[in-house]
C-alpha cells in the first residue's frame, strides 16, 4: 500500500514535470516565464529556435549570452544560473514553451464591442 502511494505520488510528480524545479525561483525572485518567453519569441520567432537557444542557455552559458542585458543582470541577479544536463533542460524548455505559447490565446475574430 505504501509502495502504491509512493508510485502514484511519483507519477504525479513526474507529470507535473521538470518545470516545477524551475518554479521555485521563477515564481519568486527570478523573472517569470511569461516575460522570458515573450523576450525569446520576439527575438527568435520560431519554437524550434526558442527551444534551441533556451537549452543552450541552461546547458552551456558560454554558447548563449542570454536575453537580458548583462549590466542589469549583474545588478539584479549576480548569481550564475544553475546548469542542467541536456535532457533535463530540453524537457523543461518544451514544457515551458507549451505552457507559455502565446498563439494559443489568439482569436481570429473581431472582439465584440
Amino acid at each position, binding site marked *: 500500500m505504501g509502495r502504491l502511494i509512493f508510485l502514484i505520488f511519483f507519477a504525479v510528480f513526474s507529470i507535473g514535470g521538470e518545470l516545477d524545479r524551475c518554479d521555485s525561483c521563477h515564481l519568486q525572485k527570478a523573472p517569470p516565464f511569461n516575460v522570458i518567453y515573450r523576450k525569446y*519569441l520576439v527575438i527568435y520567432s520560431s519554437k524550434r529556435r526558442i527551444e534551441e537557444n533556451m537549452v543552450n542557455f541552461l546547458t552551456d552559458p558560454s554558447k548563449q549570452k542570454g536575453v537580458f542585458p548583462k549590466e542589469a543582470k549583474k545588478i539584479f541577479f549576480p548569481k550564475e544560473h544553475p546548469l542542467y544536463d541536456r535532457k533535463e533542460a530540453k524537457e523543461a524548455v518544451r514544457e515551458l514553451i507549451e505552457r507559455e505559447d*502565446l*498563439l494559443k490565446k489568439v482569436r481570429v*475574430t473581431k472582439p465584440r464591442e
Partner: protein
Amino acid sequence: MFPSEKRSLTRFLIIYMFSTLFLISIGIAIFYRYDYHRLSDYQNEKLKTQTQNLIPKLRELHKSFDEVLYYPVQKGLNSAIYDIDKNYLVGDLKPSPYFKDKMDKNEEFWRDGDYIYYLTKVYPHYLGAAYLISRAKFDPSPINELREKLALFFLLSAIFVFFIAYLLGKLFLFPMKSALSMLDDFIKDTAHELNTPVSVILANTELLKEFYPNLQTSEELSRIEIASKRLSRIYDDLTFLKLNHKRHRNVKEIDLSSLAKERAAYFEIMAKARRIELKAKIKEGVFLRMDFEDAAKLMDNLISNALKYTKPQGEVEIILDEKFLIVKDNGIGIESRYKKFVLRRFFRANDSEGGFGLGLSIVKEIVDYYGFRLDIESEPDKGTKVEILWGD
C-alpha cells in the same frame, strides 16, 4: 470616279491609315503600360500602408497579458503571419503552398486572381511573426476606365486620320482625275465625229451595189464595206463603255439562236475576206432573259476578236447551246503572261492588229452584269476558246 482613281485612292488610304494607326498604337501601348503601372502602384501602396498599420497592433498583442488576444482583422484586408522558418502561425488569410516560394524570393507584391498580395518582413518578431502576408481585392475599374478611354481615343484618331487621308488623296489625285476625264471626253468626241462619215460610207456602198449590180461581187467594194463596218463597231464599243452606266437596259426573253445566226452571217463577209472558215453550230430555240443590245455586243466582240487573231486559212467556230455559248478559234492564242490583262480596258497584247483593246473588257462587263460565267482557255499558236455559261 474612275476605277483607276478609286483603286489608287483606296491603296493610298490603306497604306496611310495603316502606317499612321500603327504609330498611334505604339504610342497608346506605351502610355497604357505607363499608366497601368501607375494605377497598380497606387493600389499596391495602399495595401502596403494598410499592412504596415497592422504591425503596431501585433506589438500590442505581444505585450498584452490578456487571456484572449484578438488578431487584427480589418475590412477589405486579409493577412497572416509566418515565423522565421516560414511556418504559418495565425491570421485570416489561408496559407497557400506557393507563399513559401514568395518568402524565399522575398517578393514584395504579386497578383493572383482578383487579389493583390503584399509580403513584408517583421522585426522584432511580435507574436513570433517574421513575415506578414496580406491581400486586398484588386480594383479593376480604373484600368478598365483607362482601356475604354484609350479605345475611344484610338477610334477618334482613326476617324480623324481617315478624313485627313481622304482629303490628301483627293488632293493628290486631282491632276490625274482631270487628265483622265479629258481623255474620256476626247474619246467620246472623236468617236462621235467618226460616226457620221462612217454611216455615210456604209449607206453609199449599199446604194452603189443596188445601182450597179455588177459591183455586187466587187472585192474592192466589199473591202470598203468591211473596213467601214469595223469602224462603226469601234464607235459602238466606245459609246457602249462610255455611256454604259446611264444606258437603260431592256431585259426580256430574247431569241439567242436567231441572233447568233444573224451575227454569224454578218461576219461571214469579213471571214471570207480574210480567208477564214466561219463555222456555226447553233441550236434552235435557245432563249435567254437579256437586253438585246448586250447580247449582240457580246457576240460581236467575241466573233470579231476571234477573227482578228486568227491567221488566213484558220477556223473560227461558234457554238450555241441551251446553257452556253462558245467562240473558238485556232489562231495565235494568248500568252500566259498576258492572260490576267486581257479583260482590262485598252489592253492589246499585239500592236499589229487594229482596235482599241476594248473587246474583252466589254464582254466582261456584260457577263458580270448578268452574273454569267466567263471561261477563257488559250494556248499560244494553238488558239483560244472563250466560253460563256449561264444557268447553273
